[in-house]
């Protein structure tokens, strides 16, 4: 009998019949292995099912563990920054913000206003493309092949924009302690606004093709409900929590990097179809958040102040003085945070990163009981996990 992370992989238990005179069936232990089109990365899920109905589900993480926290303790501050990108590789700029904000708070580093606005613009573009990816991927899991490619059309243009400023399409290394690396041109800002208009114009297309499609509604409405209490108990944050009806968005609640200067709404479930906290609401939540992010980008571009884009006091060999801080920020998948402790040395003493997917995946076990396998796919797709930030 194999035991992995305390999970027994045997089929010696018989499934209890649902009705007294039902057929006695045997349970199947399935392995949705690390390589699977739907697990969004190397997530291994061990399912115990009675046919198609899931009795038990054990997510086994750790396949992408790259010891980021230990590496951050061994490299200097500036050397360690690229490792943080690779945690949530789909929302890399937001992940950089996570580490940089904590260090800046602990070391009381000032960030110029222009740099803060540029950070906001880049992070919101990153949020839009991450949500486009997530929504398209969810459609792909549900069998809708085409909306995925339509969303990638917008994503491709945004990657070009980000590439022109930061030098990277997926991993950016743009946000540094004290500011950002490079300024933007007026021409880039014009193109960025044009892209925002294009995304806004295409939202109707996505909604007609995917979100309000009858088959998609049947697959996702009322399916895999994560209600408010479950989300809070498991510390599931981000679109999951908001679709469950909790009005929590760190950009509004505990603003960072000048988010208080912008006027935007926080969409909260329930939305017009389905039940609060179901898969459809999470999907719709992401699409609504895209629209809000576009608003923020437009405002930031319009109000962009002039000035430096980095703090001249931060050099390559900069060390944070002794201190500690805990700052959380809103990434596309939830709340990321870093508990940062410094002892004055050349490297962080402890940089404990929290990736939201770690807690989001942990609620799979409880939420998946009684679902059909197709519904489990809807659950995993709508939670939108990235194993990089889960395993770090």
């Amino acid at each position: 009998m194999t035991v992995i992370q305390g999970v027994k992989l045997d089929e010696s238990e018989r499934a209890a019949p649902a009705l007294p005179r039902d057929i006695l069936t045997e349970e199947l232990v399935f392995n949705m292995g690390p390589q699977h089109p739907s697990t969004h990365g190397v997530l291994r899920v061990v399912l115990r099912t009675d046919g198609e109905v899931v009795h038990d589900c054990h997510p086994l993480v750790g396949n992408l563990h790259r010891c980021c926290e230990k590496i951050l303790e061994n490299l200097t501050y500036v050397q360690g920054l690229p490792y943080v990108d690779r945690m949530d590789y789909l929302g890399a700029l937001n992940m950089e913000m996570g580490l940089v904000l904590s260090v800046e708070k602990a070391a009381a580093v000032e960030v110029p206003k222009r740099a803060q606005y540029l950070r906001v613009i880049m992070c919101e573009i990153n949020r839009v493309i991450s949500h486009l990816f997530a929504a398209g991927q969810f459609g792909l899991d549900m069998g809708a092949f085409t909306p995925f490619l339509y969303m990638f059309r917008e994503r491709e243009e945004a990657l070009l924009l980000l590439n022109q400023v930061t030098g990277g399409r997926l991993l950016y290394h743009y946000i540094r302690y004290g500011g950002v690396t490079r300024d933007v041109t007026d021409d880039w800002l014009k193109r960025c606004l044009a892209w925002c208009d294009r995304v806004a114009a295409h939202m109707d297309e996505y909604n007609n093709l995917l979100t309000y499609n009858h088959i998609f509604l049947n697959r996702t409405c009322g399916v895999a409900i994560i209600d408010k209490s479950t989300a809070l108990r498991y510390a599931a944050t981000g679109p999951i929590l908001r679709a469950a009806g909790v009005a929590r968005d760190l950009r509004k609640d505990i603003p960072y990097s000048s988010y208080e200067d912008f006027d935007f709404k926080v969409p909260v479930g329930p939305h017009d179809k389905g039940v609060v906290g179901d898969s459809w609401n999470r999907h719709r939540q992401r699409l609504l958040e895209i629209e809000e992010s576009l608003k923020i980008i437009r405002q930031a571009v319009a109000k962009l102040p002039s000035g430096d884009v980095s703090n001249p006091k931060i050099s390559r060999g900069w060390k944070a003085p002794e201190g500690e801080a805990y700052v959380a920020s809103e990434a596309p998948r939830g709340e990321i945070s870093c508990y940062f402790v410094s002892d004055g040395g050349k490297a962080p003493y402890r940089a404990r990163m929290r990736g939201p997917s770690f807690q989001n995946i942990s609620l799979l076990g409880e939420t998946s009981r009684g679902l059909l396998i197709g519904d489990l796919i809807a659950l995993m797709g709508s939670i939108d996990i990235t194993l990089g930030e889960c395993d770090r």
Partner: protein
Amino acid sequence: MILAETPPFSSHIAGWLAGLVGMEPNWLFSAVGALVVAAVILLLVVTPVGLGGVYLERKLAGRMQNRRGPNRVGPYGLLQSLADGVKLLAKEDILQRGADSPLFRFAPYLVFMAAFAGFVVLPFAPGLVAADLDVGLFYFLALIALETVGIVMAGWSSNNKWSLLGAMREVAQVVSYELPLGLAAMCPALAVGSLSLVAITDYQAGPIWKWLLWRDIYWAIAMVPAFLLFYTAGLAAAKRAPFDLPEAESELTAGFHTEYSGMRFGMFFLPEYAMMLSLSAVTSVLFLGGYHDPIGLSAPGKLFDGVWWWGLLWFFLKTTFLFLTQIALRWTLPRIRIDQVMYLCYKVLLPIGMGSLLLTAALRLLG
């Protein structure tokens, strides 16, 4: 033998063979002649059309998805299917440890046979049918059931729980959808009074208003639901999206054919397109007039009566139209969950089918 009458090509071949040997053409030579015609149809017509169907699907899917589709191999990517075939042939033949080897090996052939044997009864053009069976329609529907056996064999013998799950889903789906499929197919058969596909086609000789779909307003009320039902149930029987659960890529990796690679996978892949084509063909024969053109020039006594290439052209046009619709549906719609598939079959389509059949019977009685 249940050959209704020997079609001209096979009788020519029978006569020539008999002349070679120096005997009178009897039933043996007719049978051999029919076999030769069937082989020619399969080789010259169906396989390239199957490969072409793959190419068409990939190009069309690409254009629908804002990209080009294959365009590297050959001009406009026309040789892509050929390259894929060569690639599949060159792959390593993997047989799993623990797989039930005889079943594992035989399953693809069974599926292949079932899909391709369906083309034998299709009337491609006046006089161009491999075997004009009296029970052609019944034979065609029975072959779909035979394919199910092959798929269950594949899923079971793969020694892989995901394949098993895919095979179980497939059995549930295809066997269930045979019911509405059969009911819908009975409507034109009842209207014509014969199960022979050639007879059904001949009944519709004439212009477009002679098609069984809309002969007059009362027939249209009975036949239009039957047509939609047959097409939808055909989609489910061919395991095409939105009913492609048995091979749902995002859920089961590849469903029942996960463990198959190389040409064994090709033996599953090609019959899928052959099945799509043959279902489109049978739909067009039953409801859309088969090889008759919409103007009526192939009716008895008219200009193109009995002209084989004219019939072939229109047969392929109608089949291609339905085939393209299947492709468009696949790339537009998400996948339906298995319990919803069952619900749709038993609680929605089956009542519609029974209603259509009753209405057709009533109309037939009343003349």
